């Protein structure tokens, strides 16, 4: 991999982290005095993906116009890495008329048809939809691919199985991504999953399965590249499980009392680790680190300002868009 790409991977991870950090801050800013989930400028559940940037960035680096993604309840990193407009996405999270969905969807239901991006709050249910996108791409004779993303907890849902089988039988250009962050809310992987690697399950569908063990963006990039190439060239679906890290709570407000691995979380953060590597190799300088952070900060700041300056929807607009 050339140094140029490395810098891009790093930059995109920082951009996403900056986004999640600021949303974290803004989300909590006005929930007090009694912490109220429905209060504030960003209401509702909030699932942030800090620590999981390598998955999104490593995969999306291979995507091009026309490629699609179905993401789960924890969608921001994939949305941003795939080119979803940060302003429109932020405005959606703030529930504004300029949002991707005019304030109807919110953080778990981001729809960006231009980028063939969507997400859903129901575990694993983006998998079948991605198969359908892939089916359409194939029928239209394009070499586009669909990426289906879910957590390791989701891999025990029936939709996972049906989708992998369907994609394999129909030889669809879809790549299934499992982000294994060790936890499904409070349930550790060992209590939910009868195998240490979901990649093992791929064999049951006769498709390639890979587990990327170390939350390293370059390892993800390699694995995803092979799978996406395969899909583009008509050879069918693949499964990639990425062992990643949930840096924060399941959702904001989660006290994580159940979490046995909390102590080592910070040291496992993939971004400082990647920065250190690039600094060490000389592919990144301290100046660039500052600059990249500042650029990200400015972009996120502008997006939040855009959201804050956008109108709140009129209550009666709730009645629109039931039918086309």
């Amino acid at each position: 991999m050339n140094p140029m790409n490395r810098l891009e991977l790093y930059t995109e991870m920082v951009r996403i982290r900056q986004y999640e950090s600021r949303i974290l801050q803004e989300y909590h800013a006005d929930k007090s005095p009694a912490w109220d989930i429905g209060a504030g400028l960003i209401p509702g559940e909030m699932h942030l993906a800090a620590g999981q940037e390598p998955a999104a960035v490593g995969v999306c680096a291979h995507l091009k116009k026309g490629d699609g993604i179905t993401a789960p309840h924890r969608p921001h990193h994939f949305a941003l890495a795939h080119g979803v407009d940060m302003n429109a996405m932020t405005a959606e999270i703030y529930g504004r008329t300029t949002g991707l969905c005019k304030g109807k969807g919110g953080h778990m239901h981001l729809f960006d048809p231009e980028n063939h991006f969507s997400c859903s709050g129901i575990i694993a249910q983006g998998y079948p939809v991605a198969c359908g996108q892939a089916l359409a791409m194939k029928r239209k004779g394009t070499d586009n691919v669909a990426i289906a993303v879910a957590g390791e907890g989701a891999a025990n849902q029936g939709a996972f199985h049906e989708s992998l089988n369907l994609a394999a039988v129909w030889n669809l250009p879809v790549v299934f991504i499992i982000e294994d962050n060790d936890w499904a809310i409070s349930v550790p992987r060992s209590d939910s999953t009868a195998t240490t690697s979901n990649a093992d399950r791929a064999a049951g569908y006769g498709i390639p399965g890979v587990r990327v063990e170390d939350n390293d963006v370059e390892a993800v990039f390699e694995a995803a590249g092979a799978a996406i190439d395969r899909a583009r060239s008509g050879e069918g679906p693949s499964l990639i499980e990425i062992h990643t890290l949930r840096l924060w709570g399941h959702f904001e407000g989660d006290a994580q009392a159940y979490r046995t691995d909390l102590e080592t979380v910070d040291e496992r953060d993939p971004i400082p680790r990647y920065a250190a590597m690039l600094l060490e190799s000389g592919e990144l300088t301290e100046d660039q680190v500052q600059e990249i952070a500042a650029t990200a900060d400015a972009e996120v700041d502008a997006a939040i300002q855009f959201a804050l300056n956008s109108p709140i929807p009129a209550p009666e607009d709730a009645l629109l868009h039931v039918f086309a």
Partner: protein
Amino acid sequence: MTATETPTRRITTAKAMAEAIGLEMRANPDVFVMGEDVGAYGGIFGSTTDLFGEFGADRVIDTPISETGFIGAGIGAAVEGLRPVVELMFVDFYGVCMDQISNHMAKIHYESGGAVKVPMVLMSATGAGYSDAAQHSQCLWGTFAHLPGMKVVVPSNPYDAKGLMASAIRDDNPVVYLFHKGAQGLVWMEKNPRSIGHVPEEAFTVPIGEAAIAREGSDVTIVTLSLSVQHSLDVAEQLEGEGISVEIVDLRSLVPLDRQTVLDSVAKTGKLLVVDEDYKSFGLTGEIAAIVAETDPTMLKKPVKRLAVPDVPIPYARSLEYGILPTRERIAEAVKDLMA
């Protein structure tokens, strides 16, 4: 109308459905069919008869028994601009895939603030009467109609079956198309002659959201749908001899629901019987009665009558099954009660 067509060409409801799908497939390459046994078999209830022969396995696709998988795939394909017609073999199987149907197919357009369309038809077989028991005999249209974001249509005869299918496929919204096995005109099932009827050969539409007056009358209004329309027509003919004039409203669509046609008929007769083969409580019969009660209860000269499956699962033995279905006898009895 083409020159070859005889104006009295009579076909079954099943054939009418398949014909409509075939016409739309010819007209629009984005239309395709998916489901279990829709290919060489032609659909267990004939809804895709002969399509496989004409269009091949690429456009008439047999699926694994993975309803969540392939209905979800239909949604994904629709989101990308195709127009899938997806069959859920029996509506009773909704429970293995209802998340895709009600949380995705039905909600994506709304959730996206109108940015994404889901032009998909989900067709499924409903109904009892041939001892298929509790897991293969339900109607469940009330369940679908309760949940926002999907249109729900239920034809009662071959003409509407064809026209509603064309409308459903052309609609930019998800349309749930529920057909009664007993109204398909299948050779292997007892049938009412009304399941075979005149249907033009060319493409035509029946508008979604408009009820039909299946029969005009002045004494009693029966609001109903699907196979129960056929039964009600039989009863109305019989009661005519006894001097009772029955008006029959065939709802045809549950979502959108044509409230006005219901109200106009009840305003005329003052007596309302709702006949439904779905479960009684929290469903169609309640909704129709409520429409009158929330509009003007003084229209009613008698309390509303609701004839539906009395909140029991569908039993197997014929004696038990016909113990709970809205049969002609029960319809006639209810009309007579209203006249008493």
